[in-house]
């Protein structure tokens, strides 16, 4: 494919050069130089820092890294900590719901926006604006709205609907769903925009062909356009997924992990033990566990994505 084209082109331009040397260093030199920042970042930052993380999770590091190795002590403590275990469970529940809802709502909204509507820019900005505002304050606003006395419940009850109940924020069993409401509010808009960009990249010929064949619009979306958007969908899943794993600000602003510890999440545990608790070893052990989990999910995907030789997504 591209490679053949490349070779043909290069060969015509560099006659007589030592082929092997040329192929290793000079061929596609621009491409190699261009990729250098990525290679460096991967090697130094992502691989280097991951090794750093794993190594120091086996030490008794406090505020700063130190080399006092303590074996699996940090992990034993981690697994014995109620707060950590609650955090993990919460992340699984919140994560699966958030992924499904963000994708579904995002896609539906994107399709609606794709119908040649008036005021598209306005609609898009409205759906996207929560993404731009700092969660310190928007979290507070959601706190007010969901506060039983201040917010919706109190207002509607005052207006005469006395049985109306919406107290999820104070209910340990429902608090995750309260966070989900605010989380979707913040994140759906961006997924919508991303998917919309995907829809817009689908070749017009496809639509024409589908129309000529008399396929209903909704079926064209589901069975023709959606599969063609695989790249953008994968991007969305990764984006949503990384947002879920890193979930921190939202929880701090909305519940601070409460009531009790019922809405704690792993990233909050990591961050607090790292900076407030001054226990780097413990924080890095928790963070290593998060990395391992991500690996377990990412490796099968990477295999599917790159395993089949030469297949392009």
């Amino acid at each position: 494919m591209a490679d053949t084209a490349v070779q043909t082109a290069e060969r015509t331009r560099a006659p007589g050069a030592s082929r092997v040397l040329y192929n290793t260093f000079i061929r596609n030199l621009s491409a190699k130089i261009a990729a250098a920042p990525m290679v460096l970042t991967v090697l130094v930052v992502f691989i280097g820092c991951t090794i750093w993380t794993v190594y120091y999770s086996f030490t008794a590091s406090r505020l700063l890294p130190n080399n006092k190795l303590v074996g699996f002590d940090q992990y034993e403590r981690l697994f014995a900590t109620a707060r950590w275990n609650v955090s993990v469970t919460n992340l699984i529940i919140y994560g699966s719901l958030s992924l499904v809802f963000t994708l579904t709502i995002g896609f539906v909204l994107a399709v609606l926006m794709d119908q040649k509507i008036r005021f598209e820019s306005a609609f898009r900005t409205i759906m996207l604006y929560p993404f731009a505002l700092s969660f310190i304050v928007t979290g507070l606003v959601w706190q007010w709205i969901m506060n039983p006395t201040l917010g919706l419940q109190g207002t509607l009850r005052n207006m005469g609907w006395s049985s109306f109940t919406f107290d999820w924020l104070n209910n340990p069993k429902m608090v995750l769903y309260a966070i989900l409401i605010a989380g979707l509010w913040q994140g759906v808009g961006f997924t919508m925009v991303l998917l919309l960009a995907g829809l817009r990249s689908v070749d017009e010929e496809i639509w024409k062909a589908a129309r000529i064949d008399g396929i209903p619009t909704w079926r064209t979306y589901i069975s023709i356009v959606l599969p063609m958007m695989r790249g953008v969908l994968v991007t969305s899943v990764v984006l949503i997924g990384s947002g879920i794993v890193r979930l921190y600000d939202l929880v701090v602003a909305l519940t601070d992990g409460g009531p009790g510890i019922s809405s704690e999440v792993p990233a909050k545990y990591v961050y607090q033990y790292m900076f407030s608790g001054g226990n780097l070893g413990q924080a890095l052990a928790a963070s290593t566990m998060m990395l391992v989990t991500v690996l377990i999910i990412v490796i099968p995907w990477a295999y599917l994505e790159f395993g089949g030789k030469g297949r392009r997504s």
Partner: protein
Amino acid sequence: MKKFAVVAALATAFMGSTAVKAVDLEVTHWWTSAGEAAAVAEFARVFEEQTGNHWVDSALSGSGTGANPVIISRIIGGDPMGATQMNTGRDAEELIQAGLMRDLTDIANEMKIEDFYVDKSLLEPCTYEGKIYCFPVNIHSWDWLWLSTKAYEKIGEPVPKDWNEYVASWPKLKEAGILPFGLATGWPISGVPGVLMSGLGGSDLVLAINRDKSGDAVRGPEFRKVAEAMDALRKEISPDMMVPSFGDVGNQILAGEAAGNIHGDWLQGDLQVAGGVPGKDYECLPALGLGDQLTGGGDAFYFPVLPEGTDPAVIQAQTDLAKLLISPEAQLAFNLKKGSMPIRLDVDLSKANACMQKAIKLLGNGLLPSGDFALSSDTQQQLQDLNIEFLDDDSITVDDYVARYAEIIEQAD
């Protein structure tokens, strides 16, 4: 007169040493609320007036996850500030070991700080291998029971004189629809056990747990009283009664919606800003009205080692600031605004309000190390997690609570 002479003499000394040129000294801290900022402004004023240098204010809100990472990163990244507020104790130890914090021992000796620090134990967390690396600038205590005059007027009873009378008044308060104990969500609950410890358990218990890290003391009968009191408290508190910030609890107390609250002395700043007058709108009981010693600790300032090639005038400014922070003039001005107690009592405290006067009296009996002073941040974080969990989850019994508390204390280092 004598005091004035000292201040004047100090002032001339500073002027003499730095009059050559004015320099900028950056100071980081997390005192961003109105009351706190007003207190810091006093430090800045004294510093600028007396040395002619310029205080560059770098406020970063939120101690733990807000300011801490920035302060620590900048120190290890080689872009240190001139002076910084920091958590005392073990947290800074590694920065000291790495040679990143300035040794203040010479300044301490020159000023003979041992002579005027009201309690020598305050300096312990600043001391590492016999040398002094930070100066505590105030004394804060959690040990206060705040009571609402209005709430007790409503039920027609006198304001309780101690914890036991207060607990006895709960049924009647509830009948009148008043919240017996107001509480904000999150960390404020974590200060309560320590207060109960010194009030109900006594000084020995505090020392055994906070200083000696004795798990047996936690499992003993004295601590059990504390755990049971916590249990009694959580029965009166439900999530929908809790308010977002402790300042809101202050408002509840002034309005008579909540009868009482255990919280640190900084609550008073809020009560006063809201127009409350001690003795009239609210009452304060140090050590729950039972104990005769307060637990406490101080906010401290560190002075990072500045990179090579720094203007000597800046280093001199650092020295001057260190001296000034604990000078009588700055101490008085700062602490009156901050609502905390000064680290030295050779200042004119007649302007201090009724509650602060009570505290100063108790200071004479010596200061007990509070948990947030004597325990590492790690241990504090674990205890906070436990307390928050216990408060909300009734399936954790008093026995579980004691057992887990003991375990955390035993693991503390």
